[in-house]
């Protein structure tokens, strides 16, 4: 408790630290926003809540790290991760997701939870339980006399995340497939009647999301680190982001992604890194509680 108060006083005494945490939070939040967008896409179009989202990210991260160990620069590993994840996404869609898409929501939730366990344990068997990080050998910029440090990797990660997000959004707006996806999200039956192959749309959406996760994972491996069991934390994070914003609300999802990044930086600084997971779970419960209050039937019992 004392330590917490101490940390808060430090923040009060050195306002510049706040700025540092804010920048850090925004830089990392960009990656959350990107992956959350993918989750919201699958959620909105297919009505599947993908609990393996975080594990897709970890897979992307491990691919980048693995290639980095064999001499490929991590930023070149990113497209590879995208392609590999796209293929994994396609396979999972064929074998699992396409079979549960029309069933009740708990079924798809549980199925993706099963996928998550397989991926986690698979990564654990393949690469061991240690924390890994892809080395990009880039400088760290210092501002305000060393009070704020911005590793170049984080800035590059931010730019990449932003570029990818813009590319995906433009794709959704302009391309035929993007339009078909949006039509399906609005009313799948109507889309089918109008000749849209919704099966293809679903498959594409799931693959697209997996590829987005691959990219996000590559960035995570570069700016942060990866570990087989960290995926669950990411899944919960992204779930919080999308639940807080509402899956149909794209700007909201992106804003909430940034908010999540900033919240975690401050929370981590004040409470200490060991409470990170607890903090995220608490946030989940709070978001669910708030949502509940909003949805509460307004008719109240008198007396």
């Amino acid at each position: 408790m004392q330590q917490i108060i101490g940390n808060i006083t430090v923040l009060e005494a050195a306002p510049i630290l706040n700025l540092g945490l804010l920048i850090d939070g925004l830089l990392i939040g960009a990656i959350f926003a990107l992956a959350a967008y993918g989750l919201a896409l699958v959620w909105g179009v297919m009505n599947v809540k993908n609990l393996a989202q975080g594990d897709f990210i970890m897979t992307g991260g491990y691919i980048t790290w693995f290639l980095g160990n064999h001499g490929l620069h991590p930023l070149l590993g990113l497209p590879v991760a995208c392609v590999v994840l796209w293929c994994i996404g396609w396979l999972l869609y064929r074998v699992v997701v396409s079979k549960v898409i029309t069933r009740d929501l708990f079924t798809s939730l549980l199925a993706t939870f099963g996928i998550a366990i397989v991926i986690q344990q698979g990564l654990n068997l393949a690469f061991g339980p240690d924390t890994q990080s892809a080395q990009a050998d880039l400088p760290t910029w210092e501002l305000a006399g060393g009070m704020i440090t911005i590793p170049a990797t984080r800035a590059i990660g931010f730019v990449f995340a932003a570029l990818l997000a813009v590319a995906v959004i433009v794709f959704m707006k302009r391309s035929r497939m993007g339009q078909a996806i949006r039509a399906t999200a609005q009313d799948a039956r109507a889309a089918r009647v109008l000749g849209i192959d919704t099966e293809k749309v679903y498959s594409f959406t799931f693959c697209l999301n997996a590829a987005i996760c691959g990219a996000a994972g590559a960035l995570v491996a570069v700016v942060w680190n990866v570990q087989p069991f960290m995926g669950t934390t990411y899944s919960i994070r992204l779930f919080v982001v999308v639940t807080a914003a509402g899956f149909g609300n794209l700007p909201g999802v992106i804003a909430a992604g940034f908010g999540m990044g900033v919240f975690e930086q401050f929370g981590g600084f004040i409470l200490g890194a060991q409470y990170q997971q607890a903090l995220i779970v608490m946030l989940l419960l709070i978001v669910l509680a708030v949502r509940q209050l909003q949805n509460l039937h307004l008719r109240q019992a008198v007396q």
Partner: protein
Amino acid sequence: MSVPIIEVENVSKSFGGVIANRSVSLSVPRGGITGLIGPNGSGKTTLFNSIVGYHPIDSGSIRLEGREISKLRVQEIARLGLLRTFQATRIYGKMNCVQNMLISIPHRKAGFFDMFASERGEVVERAEHLLAFVGLYDKRFLRAGSLSFGQQKLLEFAMALMNEPTVLLLDEPTAGINPTLINGLIERLKRANTEFGITLFIIEHNMRVIMNMADVIYCLAHGELLTSGEPGAIQRDQRVIDAYLGAH
């Protein structure tokens, strides 16, 4: 007519700018059969939903036997003896008809230990009697979800009777029912009214049915009360005819 059992006064309800009910006032007399008609989208089901507590109302007052109920929730209103059936029939699909009936007993004074009650002799008898009343006795052990639509509708009606309501709101009881069976249904509704003393308030599209049954009919159009009166008068009212034909 005697004292009204339901009094609706100046009730308004809008959904995000779309006005579904604007200052509707009407009263349902005790012991009778009251009809509610109006073209599609005129706000009939919205009014029903407001009365049974499905959603809050924007303004106005709704009273059941003189008691204000516009702030109560669905369950509490149901326990006061005001029940509704749904337009798209709703029954408990994976349970059989008798089970559907047994769980529809009134829950007015149910205490904690009533949850675990299982003495059923009299209750089962009543359930079977009511199933016979609607003509489902032979099918009483069938899974409710496997019945035809019309049979499910009858089952829902029997479940409502099992609950011993004082007022029953029926949302299009004859919609989707084979025309040859409608007369039987009308006769049963009338018997429920006379034999069990249940006040009925019915939304109906089928004019022949409603004219045949109701003592008083209210007509809604564009969310407002257009007119009310006896079936004969309504039938001759030019405004009602215009509303149905789309003129305004």
